[in-house]
């Protein structure tokens, strides 16, 4: 409760005491936007943490060895992520549904276990120290970036690109019959998602003094967390995954006293949303709560009256 009391009674103090949280919400929201693009085009890709790792390591290594400016480092990470996105997308995008999900998990695990934990320059299991990081100052950059990314999402889903993406999501065969080059539009979405994830990775590395090669950072655990943003928030509208990221990232702070049980709480909340709000928090039907068919209903009074 303290969390909300401070948020509403003294926003400035809240900002100062929760800067790291706000920055993390921003980062996660950008990653959620990356997830949104692939889902919006009908692809269940879990590759985002892999592209984040590429963005994070590329920019941190450049800063460590060449002392190049932050903007150049992040831009290089983004370009590298895009190139890898094309290379991975070519074979992998022939797959659909869970098969694509499994293949993309294969990609992020191969990258983390096979490359990052094995190549000396990445610091292997020890990770990288990043003395140039700026945790508190970075928050403004994160929030501005988030605003730009959200604007992009909003506009892209309105135009020809977005129209083709939603057609593909709803029915690939029907999209083909409308003359839509399905393979090309899927690739555009996949690479754009890689670009945004690589960007988020570079930003996130800039917020921490240490690049951690752990599973919860660039592995399956992170992939599942990103997926939960979309499931929770809803993936039909670009705001959805961002709302999901906000909720998932904030929950541990709201229930600070119950830190030990936070995973159980988050899980229960996720299940509740899936059961009562299958389209996610943001979706069709306003804020209506949907009672599943097995939910006990009050016995209805018989329509026929005796006598």
């Amino acid at each position, binding site marked *: 409760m303290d969390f909300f009391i401070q948020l509403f009674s003294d926003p400035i103090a809240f900002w100062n005491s929760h800067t790291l949280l706000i920055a993390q919400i921003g980062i996660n929201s950008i990653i959620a936007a990356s997830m949104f693009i692939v889902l919006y085009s009908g692809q269940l890709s879990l590759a985002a943490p892999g592209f984040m790792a590429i963005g994070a390591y590329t920019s941190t290594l450049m800063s460590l060895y060449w002392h190049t400016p932050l903007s150049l480092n992040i831009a290089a990470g983004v370009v590298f992520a895009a190139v890898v996105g094309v290379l991975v997308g070519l074979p992998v995008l022939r797959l659909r549904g869970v098969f694509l999900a499994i293949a993309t998990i294969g990609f992020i695990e191969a990258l983390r276990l096979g490359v990052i934990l094995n190549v000396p320059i990445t610091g292997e299991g020890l990770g990288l120290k990043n003395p140039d990081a700026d945790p508190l100052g970075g928050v403004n950059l994160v929030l501005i970036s988030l605003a730009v990314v959200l604007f992009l999402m909003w506009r892209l889903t309105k*135009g020809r690109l977005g*129209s083709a993406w939603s057609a593909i999501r709803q*029915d690939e065969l*029907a999209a083909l019959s409308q003359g*839509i080059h399905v393979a090309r539009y899927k690739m555009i979405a996949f690479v754009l998602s890689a670009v945004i994830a690589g960007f988020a990775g570079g930003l996130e590395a800039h917020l921490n003094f240490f690049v951690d090669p752990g599973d919860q950072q660039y592995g399956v655990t992170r992939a599942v967390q990103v997926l939960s943003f979309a499931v929770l928030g809803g993936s039909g509208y670009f705001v959805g995954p961002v709302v999901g990221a906000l909720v998932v990232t904030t929950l541990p702070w709201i229930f600070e006293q119950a830190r030990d049980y936070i995973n159980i709480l988050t899980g229960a909340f996720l299940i509740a949303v899936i059961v009562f709000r299958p389209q996610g928090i943001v979706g069709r039907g306003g804020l209506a709560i949907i009672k599943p068919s097995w939910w006990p209903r009050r016995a209805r009074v018989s329509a026929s009256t005796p006598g």
Partner: protein
Amino acid sequence: MRAVDGVSLEVKQGSIQGLIGPNGAGKTTLVNVVTGYVPFQSGHAWLQSDEVTGLPAHRIAALGISRTFQNIRLFKDLTALENVVVGMHTRRRDDTLAQLATLPMFRRDQRSRLDEARRLMETVGLAAKDIGGRPAGTLPYGDQRRLEIARALALRPRLLILDEPAAGMNPSEKQGIRELIERLNRDGLTILLIDHDMRLVMGVCQRVAVLDFGRKIAEGTPDEVSTDAGVIKAYLGTRGDKEVASAPGAAGVDEAEEALEASGGGSDVEPLHAILEVHDLTVSYGAVTAVRGASLRVAAGEVVALIGANGAGKSTILSTLSGLIRPDSGTAVFDGLDLTHASSAAIVRHGLVQVPEGREILARQSVLENLELATWGGRRDRAAIRKEIEAVMKRFPILGERRALRAGTLSGGEQQMLAIARGLLAKPRLLLLDEPSLGLAPQMVDEVFSAIEEIHKEGTTILLVEQNALRALEIADRAYVLETGQIRLTGSGDDLLHNPAVRRAYLGG
């Protein structure tokens, strides 16, 4: 397996060309080949001077062949208008930069696209003002069919292919579709129409081609085609080794038919003591009514056939009887058990067993395993189960020989035998057979039918659904003729065999 084999077809500019054929004839496969959905081994396709052979589907669409789908494929969560706007994809400039900058140009273009989408919806008879903003999946069935046509028109096609646009529609909706097709054609659109509804195809098309087993067996004006002996044979099937000349309608005894219809189709032959009694059954799938007020009776020991063209509601009646579908209204009682409320399992235990259309065997399991699975549940006595399986294998010796083979490697006829054998293991008193001759070569049809006759001789009552009407009528004691969900005629097998109205139920006219 050749689904389409050496077919040539020419659609004249500005005409309506029909493409018909019995179930499994390869009509949809042909469309899928022409539109780039299915790869093919040999042949060529041209759209005017453009060769479309081997192009990917999206290129073919962009060249101007637009299509609808047999089972509607709208973008269900997009609004009706958005669906039509997607159809304009190929003639829309890439506006990514314009929309990023939110230029007024983008807004203006979007407004003109929406206007055009509204006009297209009005063209196909949809009120854009009322339903344009609704998600396509929530529209009534008939409107979804029309919306799919509007979306196809948004491509500004040179050729529009309609794959069963009137499927599942009631007569007045069908009339509406017919008028729409004629209107689009008058406005200069070339149309290739595929449909099972002969009244529609024969009424609207200038020329009709007929496919059977992947080959073109006839082409000509509707009149030529509907009296063609080969076409009648393809639709009504053949009678053992007899000649087609005796097929109903070939002799053209219209007066006899009229008399028969006037007399109410000889309902006097219906049995008094029925083991199965169906009264006024109405069944629908969502907005589509498949069966409208059907009544029928089957007495113990009979073979009764339900015949009628594709989509007449035959399989729906069977599935309702086995408890897989619940009817909207009407009753169905089998030997004291209310079939409209009992569970499927209870219905099978009571002795009513369905052999489904398409056989539905487990292709990767062996023949023996398929049979063993049929004895699952209930009886635990292994020795007795063995004996039952051996008995069934004796009844179908071919299954005994192939017991160790994977069921998927059997021929179509053998798979059908397996499906029937599996049904017999459930100890039916009434066996429902759904299209046992579907997709089988003629001599296999003979074998399957003689097996059915033998099962009947051993005392099992049979309700048989068949498109191959002549074969079914030969072995049936009585038959009901279904047309668009209603029972049109009933009589003894022999009577109907010589009744030209049967041909009309299949070929229209």
